[in-house]
């Protein structure tokens, strides 16, 4: 019985992220528009967009291979799995031990790998630009992320997210400079990874500056829907990750009963609202930077992450 | 060994070194050959004295070979070669005669310095003999390396051989085999040198060794 309940919770988590992801995107757009004194699209517009795309026919470029058509599913699957492993409203889910933080980072890497390949598949110049720039960003974002993971797991003595979260909500944390450094670094990485301002402008199709959009330029119909959906999921994943680690309160623990889950869910939604709002504020108050400044931006993140790890290595007998 | 015997041997060996210096000093071809003949004479005297002192009659053969062959036959032959090949009459030294002589004196000092402590236990005649013969050998080598002209190099080589014979005769009771072989080897050596001189004459019109260098390609 317990296993079935656990499986249900796990399944619920998977469905939950699926459902919430477009909503978060819509919410962000709405808040951004409001901040810019526009009315903005309705909150549920992303769902409509997805449905619209799914119903449309697919136009596949002449030179596209099977990889082009398979990639959206692979990307979606990898991100979905990663997203469902990040604690949202509860920790200690039944499969949470099957992949730790490092594996989650690597899963996102897989998704990016296939996205970049898909960008190259048709053989257009814009696809190449996107893939090339994406793979310029990744080598800095990933090590930065790994460094952040290191800081956290050295503190928590675990790379398992559930344990990290449990540790962060526990009494042993204290105020640590390393934690602060990694929070800043994580936010920077998250911005870069999700193609947000100031690294990339999700709303642009201006050829010379785009990264993510350039790669998916050739996609249409249901394929594009999958990719857009995956992008929303990834955003949700990062927001959940940040809030789970740095706002670890209110999480349900396995076996606590239904009320805990309900409370967890409510707290989680509140966190999303808060984090989304802050993200939107940040994005509207900053200008996009030149593509080649991105490396400096991410280099800073990497340095912060490394600094955080080093401080831990040196400052404490772990 | 009595004092007189020793003194005579000493004088003769010393004379050989002296003649070596004279060889070094010569800057003209014909006197050079003559001085070489003189050295051969002194050598044969020295060997003969050793034969007498050591009561080793076979050494007289060596002495007479030195006298007949080196003091007479070879100088005459060299005279003719120089004449026939029209070799430049002047010896061309590499460095000035003065420094060469000075270096020679240094070599003599070196050979004495090396030999004297070494042979402390050996009898003194042998010791002196060895020191002098080493000096002659070194001076002969010096002659070979400080002269451009092939004939003077050959003479330097033979002077070196003279030093060897002096040493061999000084070694008491050294089997005859060796002396004869030395003599023969010198004979053969000279014949071979002669053959080569002949061939070199035939092909290069000069015995100056530097002429040989001209035929090196960059092919090595």
């Amino acid at each position, binding site marked *: 019985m317990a296993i079935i309940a656990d499986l249900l919770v796990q399944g619920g988590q998977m469905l939950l992220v699926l459902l919430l992801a477009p909503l978060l995107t819509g919410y962000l757009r709405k808040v951004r528009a409001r901040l810019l004194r526009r009315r903005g699209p309705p909150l549920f517009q992303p769902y409509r967009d997805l449905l619209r795309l799914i119903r449309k026919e697919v136009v596949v470029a002449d030179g596209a291979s099977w990889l082009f058509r398979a990639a959206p599913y692979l990307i979606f699957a990898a991100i979905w799995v990663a997203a469902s492993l990040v604690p949202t409203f509860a920790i200690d889910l039944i499969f949470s031990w099957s992949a730790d933080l490092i594996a989650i980072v690597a899963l996102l890497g897989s998704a990016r790998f296939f996205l970049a390949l898909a960008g190259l*598949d048709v053989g257009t110049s814009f696809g190449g630009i996107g893939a090339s720039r994406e793979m310029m960003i990744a080598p800095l974002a990933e090590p930065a992320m790994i460094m952040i993971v290191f800081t956290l797991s050295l503190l928590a003595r675990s790379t398992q997210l559930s344990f990290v979260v449990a540790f962060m909500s526990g009494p042993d944390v204290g105020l640590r400079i390393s934690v602060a450094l990694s929070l800043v670094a994580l936010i920077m990485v998250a911005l870069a990874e999700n193609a947000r301002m100031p690294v990339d402008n999700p709303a642009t199709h201006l050829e010379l500056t785009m990264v993510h959009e350039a790669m998916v330029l050739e996609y249409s119909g249901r394929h594009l829907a999958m990719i857009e959906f995956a992008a929303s999921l990834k955003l949700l994943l990062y927001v959940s990750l940040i809030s789970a680690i740095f706002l670890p309160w209110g999480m349900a623990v396995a076996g606590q009963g239904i009320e805990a889950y309900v409370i967890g869910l409510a707290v989680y939604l509140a966190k999303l609202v808060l984090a989304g709002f802050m993200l939107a504020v940040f994005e509207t108050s900053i200008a996009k930077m030149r593509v080649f400044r991105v490396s400096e931006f991410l280099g800073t993140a990497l340095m912060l992450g490394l600094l955080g790890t080093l401080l831990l290595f040196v400052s404490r007998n772990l | 060994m009595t004092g007189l015997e020793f003194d005579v041997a000493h004088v003769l060996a010393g004379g050989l070194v002296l003649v070596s210096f004279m060889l070094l000093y010569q800057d003209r071809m014909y006197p050079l050959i003559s001085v070489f003949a003189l050295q051969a004479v002194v050598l044969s005297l020295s060997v003969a004295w050793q034969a007498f002192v050591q009561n080793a009659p076979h050494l007289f053969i060596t002495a007479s070979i030195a006298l007949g062959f080196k003091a007479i036959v070879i100088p005459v032959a060299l005279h003719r070669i120089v004449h026939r090949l029209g070799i430049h009459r002047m010896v061309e030294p590499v460095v000035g005669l003065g420094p060469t002589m000075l270096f020679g004196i240094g070599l003599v000092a070196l050979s004495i310095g090396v030999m004297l402590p070494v042979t402390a236990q050996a009898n003194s005649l042998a010791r002196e003999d060895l020191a002098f013969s080493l000096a002659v050998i070194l001076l002969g080598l010096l002659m070979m390396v400080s002269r451009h002209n092939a004939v003077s190099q050959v003479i330097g080589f033979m002077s070196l051989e003279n030093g060897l014979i002096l040493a061999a005769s000084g070694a008491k009771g050294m089997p005859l085999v060796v002396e004869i072989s030395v003599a023969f080897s010198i004979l053969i050596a000279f014949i071979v040198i002669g053959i080569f001189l002949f061939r070199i004459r035939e092909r290069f019109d000069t015995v100056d060794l530097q002429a040989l260098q001209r035929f090196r390609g960059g092919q090595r």
Partner: protein
Amino acid sequence: MDLIAILALAAALLALGVLAILLTRLRVATPIVYGGSLVLTALALPLAIHHLLFAAGADEQVWLPLGLPWLGSHFHLDSLAAFFLIVVNLGAVAASLYALGYGRHEPAPGRVLPFYPAFLAGMNLVVVADDAFTFLLAWEFMSLSSWALVMARHREEGNARAGFVYLAMASFGTLALLLAFGLLAGSTGAYAFDQIRTSKHEALLASLAFALVILGAGSKAGLVPLHAWLPLAHPAAPSHVSALMSGVMTKVAVYGFVRIVLDLLGEPLWWWGMVVLALGGISSALGVLYALMEHDLKRLLAYHTVENIGIIFIGLGLALAFRSNALDLAAALALTAALFHVLNHSLFKSLLFFGSGAVLVATGQRDMERLGGLIHRMPYTAFAFLVGSTAISALPPLNGFVSEWLTFQSILVSPQLSQWALKFFVPAMAALLALAAALAAACFVKAFGVTFLGRPRTAEAAAAQEVDRFALGAMFGLSALCLLAGIFPGVVIDAISLVTQRLVGAQMPAQLGNAWLSIIPIAASRSSYNGLIVFAFIGLAVFASTYAIHRWASRAVRRSAAWDCGFPDPSPRTQYTAGSFAQPIRKEFGTLVFLARERVTMPLPGDSSPARLEVRMRDLIWEVFYEPIWGVVGFLADQLNKLQLLSIRKYLSLVFGVLVLILLVLALWQ
């Protein structure tokens, strides 16, 4: 029994090589030699597996009256040797199978066939050798036979240089190892490994030997800055040999390092680990950067070997550091990570070289800028290459990820180290490792994307044909192994535990008993990973989403010209190239590492000539380490060569001078 059988198989391989000399002119030689190699190595493989899994405690020793007369040839099969025998023979089986098809395209089989089995025999013998003489004999024999294989395409430009650099470096490595063994054996000449193992070595002497082993084994493995031969030699050989050299021979070098440093030298000093870590970190980062700058597919793969060797050495360095601090369990974890990566790299690097060989056969091209779109013409090769690319990029659920994950886990234990220098150093190496892993992914997006995706850039690429069944069989076999090792890592880890138990006296917890076959390096509360579940999850998600989409979405598909923001250009030359793909990374890292300088020549307004972009990059390692040596050797050779053309008189003066000098010394001495 296993050992005797292995030796017999090695002898049979040598005999096969001799047979190949006799058969060179016949066409059947190719199937005979490769088939024979396949059978023989396929026989050796189960023996090695059997020994590792079921006879780990029961070492076998064989003594033959060969080699040094008073020593004889000692051979020894323990779990470490058995593990590397598996790596060697697995690679050999795959390469032989591949070559059954690939070898038919060989222009001059007589230059390959005799050396191929000899090379295999050499690698097998290195692993089982148990005295210094036999070890070095086999080691250098392996180098020599692979050198002959490198020289097989001797007419191609640049191969002469490759051959020269390769064998010169190999010789350098052997001499370094020889010095190391000389130090360890002592003046009595105790060359047998047993004697070396049991004798006590002073710290200074052991450190010297360690440094020499780094030079010797490191140069063979391809550690920066000793890697210079590797990107020259590996691509020059026929592809199945490239696969063996990159995938397997470098692992034999790792074996040599492990055997000597962890087994023979006794207790390590802590700074050994630091040196190895530093070299590993630098190798991994530089190797992948070099690879990114490369357009030649096989050279790119060769540089990735440098990267992966770096990763392996990071693991080994950690193992040494832990061991010197008596943290045996952590050492076991780090060593497991390193050895796991050894196996993984041998699998996917062979696979990738097979793929590049297939491309080479199909198009005659190694230059990526002249390829493209091969996924349409060679779908199976493309799929296998994609699997290999994913694996080498350390992406889950394939095997490359597992070993890097384990390496990260062992890095996370390193705060327990007591030396401050190490504490500072390990996180930096971790960052380098992460950087290398991410760059590797970028590099393989480039390699796969430019070679297989897009549109063909040349007529040869457009006319490519899928390769034969043998080659495909070998590639798919390896792909399957990559996947299996990725989703059942516990099996491999448990096997490696038998090795670490032997070397560092500890082992990781048994993995096969864990629920759901997940792997737990230390404790469930610290970290765990389950390749199987991740794989199942991804499969499930793909299946679910595909099903849902196809169930509810429009299924209409229309083929049309590419959109490309409205400016589609029919010429395939407007595609992104390998060079342009790597340009951002070149800007980020290249200006520092390669002193890359770009110069743009823009035509004046109104001038219709094309703009030109020139990129100049410098290989600093080559310039700093190799060119000066070469320059000094050349200078001295020139100077001494003047002594060749002296006159006889001057030569005599030399003799005279030496005589006088020695006499002077003698006179003064007395």
